């Protein structure tokens, strides 16, 4: 009885997913910041690996988080700051629906990331880790993106530069914050977009 029910439910699941896929059309990324929207319009995030250089901690991650929020997909945020506690109010304050945001916080999450990507449970995965990724890891992420149509944001704790390129990511963007100028700066290292944009603190966080 139970096995039959499970079989039927898996058919139902497959049908539902197929139906979902057939009606899904790429929606433009619309954040509450108009100038940011214009900047990201030329970038393609869906089903791509995008690398973000975020050397200024949480404050610099606000911009990729706003873009992620605007994508409106069920998302898993993976981090390796196990000794720190996740503060969900930050994400909620950026407009994330916490019902579709999941967190995984462990000291060495690489193996878990592999399991997550193999299972293909989340269409969107944000990886915020300080751990060094070698080319095999990056290749794995690239393959997951291509084969399973997953969107991945890889947040790195340093400035990205062309000196050390990453052939596996479609786009490489630096996001930083300057206290003296009270402004965010986005600069594209790889990808089709204007090279640089400055957004004021007020513009990003207070509309």
């Amino acid at each position, binding site marked *: 009885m139970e*096995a039959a029910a499970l079989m039927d439910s898996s058919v139902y699941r497959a049908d539902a997913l197929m139906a979902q896929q057939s009606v899904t059309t790429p929606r433009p990324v619309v954040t509450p910041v108009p100038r940011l929207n214009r900047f990201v319009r030329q970038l393609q995030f869906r089903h791509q690996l995008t690398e973000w250089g975020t050397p200024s901690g*949480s404050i610099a991650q606000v911009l990729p988080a706003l873009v992620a929020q605007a994508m409106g997909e069920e998302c898993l945020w993976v*981090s390796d700051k196990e000794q720190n*506690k996740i503060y969900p109010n930050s994400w909620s304050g950026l407009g994330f629906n916490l019902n579709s945001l*999941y967190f995984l916080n462990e000291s060495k999450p690489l193996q*878990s990331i592999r399991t997550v990507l193999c*299972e293909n449970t989340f269409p969107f995965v944000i990886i915020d880790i300080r751990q060094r990724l070698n080319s095999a890891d990056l290749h794995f992420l690239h393959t997951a993106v291509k084969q399973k149509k997953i969107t991945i944001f890889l947040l790195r704790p340093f400035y990205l530069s062309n000196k050390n390129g990453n052939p596996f990511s479609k786009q490489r963007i630096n996001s930083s914050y300057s*206290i003296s100028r009270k402004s965010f700066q986005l600069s594209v290292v790889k990808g089709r977009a204007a090279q640089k944009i400055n957004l004021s603190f007020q513009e990003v966080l207070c509309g």
Partner: protein
Amino acid sequence: MAELLSLFNYQQTPEEFLPYLIVQSERPQTLQSLSSDIMQITESIYVIDLILVEKYWSRVASKNNRSFTQMIEQVVRQEVPDATLSLLCEHPFQGLVFFNHLKMHESRGFFSTSSLFAQKIYKNMGWHPWMLAARQAHDCFEAAHCLKKERKNFHGKLGQLQRFVERLDMQEFSGLQQAHFFEISRRFKGFIGSLWRWTFPEQQTTPEELTLFLTFDHYQRLQGFPWVPFFQDEPASQQTLLEHSVSDWGSLRESLFLDLEKLSRKPELAPPYKIVQMQWTLTLYDMSQVTETLFFKYPLSFEEEREREFETLLKQLQFCFEGFRQRMRERDAEIAMINTPLIVGWLLEVTKGFVLSEKEGVLDFEEQVSRLKNIEIQELDNKMKSSIQTFKVFDHFVSGLDYQEKGLSAKDSGASVPLVLDQPRPFYLSPEEEELSPTDIKSFQFLDRTSSDWWRRQDALDSYRDCYICELTNKSFVFAYRNYKGQWFQYGL
């Protein structure tokens, strides 16, 4: 007024989880439909531990739009029809006292010690049910040969306690509530002291997640109450003795797969049985044995696992093996054994599981895709070392608490209310506030001033926190606050 406001808000927090269920039943085999952890107190009174299966029942409860307590009540009514009286409680002994009281008054039905009604009754309960529970607990531990030293001269000391309360003309045992257990223990010996401690158990919180390698300290929850497991059948097991020793996961995996295949064909593990815990006892080259325990965050059906080629089980066994190998490498670091650990055999045992009735096990076809998604995420969670977390943020003021972790299957209380973020907040909070030296701070930007819980503090100024984003001299950015004395503390990343 502020205190009153916060008190009302606390009323809105989710229901308290009571981990033990006391049931009177003549058919103990039916109790397995609730949990695998059962303890027999008297011939027909059983205590059921719900800690390991909490997540599962919460998930089923959520699916059926019920609370955890309502769900357990429904299962007891359906699966244990001869149980006329059942009680959810914080501690087995506390529950036993209450249970005896209810029985004496010929009460019937399902009770919970967390209800306001039960708390009022408990405060006004006479000594008779307590004395009876003490004797029942003594007889139970005597049969199990537990606490021998503490129980010495129990009946004499219990009589002494009875005379003592009669002399004081104390009708209710709550009259002695203020007496600390070690004072009772000093006067009436250790066992009665322990019974006293269990009568008013301290509030214990269950860890949010039972991770793969973390054995939840039941002792802590039970506060020294010896748990005597009630086994009805021998646990299903599969033993393997290898001809050659192995030390890598690749070789182990093949043999383990065959073992799991054999285990899955055992009739006692056939549906509706679901496993919660397994033990893997490895025999090493020096014939020493190491036991690894596997916990499943959500109960697992062996039949479903076989269909999926034991993906979850093998993943968890692999985590166990990697942890074990790391420990062995550290142990044998001095003798530089390249291939440690050399394994020559093992025993796989299903140590905990429970029988699931068809009604709860079958998926509802009318479910939304999101529900199926939830199940998918739970299946994924079973394959992970750490747990996937979800949170909800309160849209009302709760003193000292502005968000809460929720279960993967917890039902939404409604549409999420996005906050208007006027100031950035850190994504991660430091475990403890760290004091920063002003010389470490290169530049800073003021964000806002907070002053929560000022009414609790002796010095109201102490509640002021001026929050800043700081750039440190090492070029990292942190969130810090400055108190009214000018000291800096880092609170987030």
